[in-house]
């Protein structure tokens, strides 16, 4: 019996994961992309920085959502892979930068590409243990691994710069311009998002959904649940690392906080705000979260209070995220499909 089938739990309508099945979705995505390309011509420089931050955090949140929205587990240590990616790039480019103050495209791109590989390796080790657990236990184990990695980075002064982090991470000259780095991010994030999208509609993507809906039943289809979850964990870690790679040269510095659980929390917020059941929900959520943060802090120091209230209201009244406001029929040509609230669980064995 479901542990959470407790009193007065009202059923929450939850749309199924959408996939690009209608011209409508294509139009929306094309429009969004067009708007993203045109953005620097219409807003001030700071907001281009903010948009850049949204792209990076959005990719990070999308990678997190492979575990959350698609696989049904919540990770509170996902930022560790983001941070490992950021540090990988930073450590590779810091030596030539300190020497000459400049970096060549070759080394720079190699450093960006090395990040997802290193993150995937770390995720492979961490994930090996984590996929054995589910629910709260999965959350706590990922949290603990994340904190452990945080402390390693925090303590290892000679290699990571410890608490100080690493500064002076200047990208090649063209990317020093705000717009330059923005378009660079836009291209890489768009490509990465395409890959994520491809994965989510592949057989593998549907196995993830099956494991989310009913892990035990998935095993009875002949699916090796752990191996598939592990593979997904590694893939998610790699994309988080890729997002992290873009972060350091964007902010010109990295610090251990990038690995901390509060950074993981930002991915969770983003997925929740935008809608974890939609491919681009986390990206939208990252947009709202980052924009709010940048906007609200201009007027008040009570940012935690503000975002706290927003999250509270969302969890209570709009658990499907902003995208769940859009009528489902609008997304798919197959017509409206209401959704199923409870996660079916196998009965406790009777004897």
């Amino acid at each position: 019996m479901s542990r959470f089938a407790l009193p007065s739990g009202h059923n929450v309508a939850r749309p199924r994961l959408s996939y690009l099945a209608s011209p409508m979705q294509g139009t929306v995505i094309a429009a969004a992309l067009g708007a993203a390309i045109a953005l620097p011509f219409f807003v001030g420089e700071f907001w281009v920085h903010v948009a850049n931050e949204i792209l990076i955090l959005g990719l990070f949140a999308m990678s997190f959502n492979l575990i959350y929205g698609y696989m049904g587990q919540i990770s509170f240590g996902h930022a560790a892979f983001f941070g490992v990616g950021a540090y990988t790039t930073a450590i590779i480019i810091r030596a030539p930068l300190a020497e000459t103050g400049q970096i060549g495209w070759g080394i720079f791109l190699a450093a960006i590409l090395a990040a997802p590989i290193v993150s995937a390796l770390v995720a492979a080790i961490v994930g090996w243990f984590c996929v054995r657990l589910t629910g709260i236990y999965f959350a706590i184990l990922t949290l603990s691994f994340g904190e452990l990695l945080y402390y390693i980075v925090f303590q290892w002064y000679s290699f990571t710069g410890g608490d100080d982090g690493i500064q002076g991470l200047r990208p090649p000259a063209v990317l020093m311009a705000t717009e330059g780095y923005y378009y660079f991010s836009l291209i890489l994030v768009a490509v990465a998002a395409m890959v994520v999208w491809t994965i989510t509609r592949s057989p593998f993507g549907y196995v993830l959904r099956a494991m989310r809906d009913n892990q035990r039943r998935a095993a009875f289809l002949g699916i090796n649940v752990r191996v598939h979850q592990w593979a997904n964990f590694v893939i998610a870690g790699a994309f988080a690392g890729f997002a992290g790679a873009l972060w350091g040269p964007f902010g010109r510095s990295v610090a251990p906080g990038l690995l901390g659980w509060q950074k993981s929390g930002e991915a969770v917020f983003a997925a929740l705000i935008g809608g974890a059941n939609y491919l681009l929900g986390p990206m939208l959520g990252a947009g709202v979260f980052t924009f709010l943060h940048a906007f609200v802090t201009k007027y008040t120091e009570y940012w935690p209070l503000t975002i706290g209230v927003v999250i509270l209201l969302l969890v209570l009244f709009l658990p499907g995220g902003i995208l769940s406001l859009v009528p489902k029929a609008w997304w798919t040509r197959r017509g409206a499909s209401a959704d199923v609230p409870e996660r079916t669980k196998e009965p406790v064995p009777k004897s």
Partner: protein
Amino acid sequence: MEFGFDFVFPQLMAGISRGMLLFLVAAGLSLIFGVMNILNFAHATFWLLGGYIAYSAFTAFGPPSGANPLLVIPATAVAVAALMLLGFGLERVLIRRMYGREVPEQLLLTFALVLIIGDLIKLVWGVEDRSVFLGLPPAVIFGAFINIYYLVIIAVGLAVLAGLYWFLQRTRFGRIVRAAVHSREMVEALGIRIATIYMVVFGLGVGLAALAGGVVLPLTPLALGADIDLIVQCFAVVVVGGFGSVIGTFVAAILIGVTYSFAIFLWPDGALAIIFLFVIAVLVVRPWGLFGTELRT
């Protein structure tokens, strides 16, 4: 350094006290987690809020330093009463809506409370650190100097452990609570409203957090953000101890406290990470924790 009695005994005492502090904060978390299966991110924030309320009560009764140590008792009582009421209210208004929900949403709701309450504390008490200083002389036990207030912490910790044990095992209500963990239907068949049980348990758990906040007031200064530092450790203790086992939480807290107390000498660079190594080891080898039962994972 020699590992003689002069070294080991005070370290052991400090470790036990450290563990007891952790247990005091984590006990309510463990209770709520065990009975309601809600992992309350805001638990340490309730602890901090309880501490601030106790501080205000204490300073209303006397100056923040050099006052009669016994004033801690009414100050703590005020904090516990206030937080229990808050707990009842929050359960009624917010937590209750989360019972049918999935784990991530429950975590997010309580995390929202961390942010909101944290800022409300800042609004009310400002950013200045607060502390109560009793100026008690150290106790000398077996030649070792001991913070005499540690003895209070240890006594209160043991009392909380015994009290929870008595409540859950010996009282009618406690038995109903334990039954509710296993079978909601059975409890309702007995004509008891499960909603009431959850409200009481949540209020009680939050009250325990306030108790911890009040009791540690003379030991630890209050500062914004202290809850964030503590909550992850509390999770660790509850998980290591085992799902829903108050005894487990106790043993885990002491174990972690004592290990830490020695680790800062034996492995200074790793001491901070030890708690997470503990959690990882336990979750990998025995996910239901030291004292939990396997079925509950």
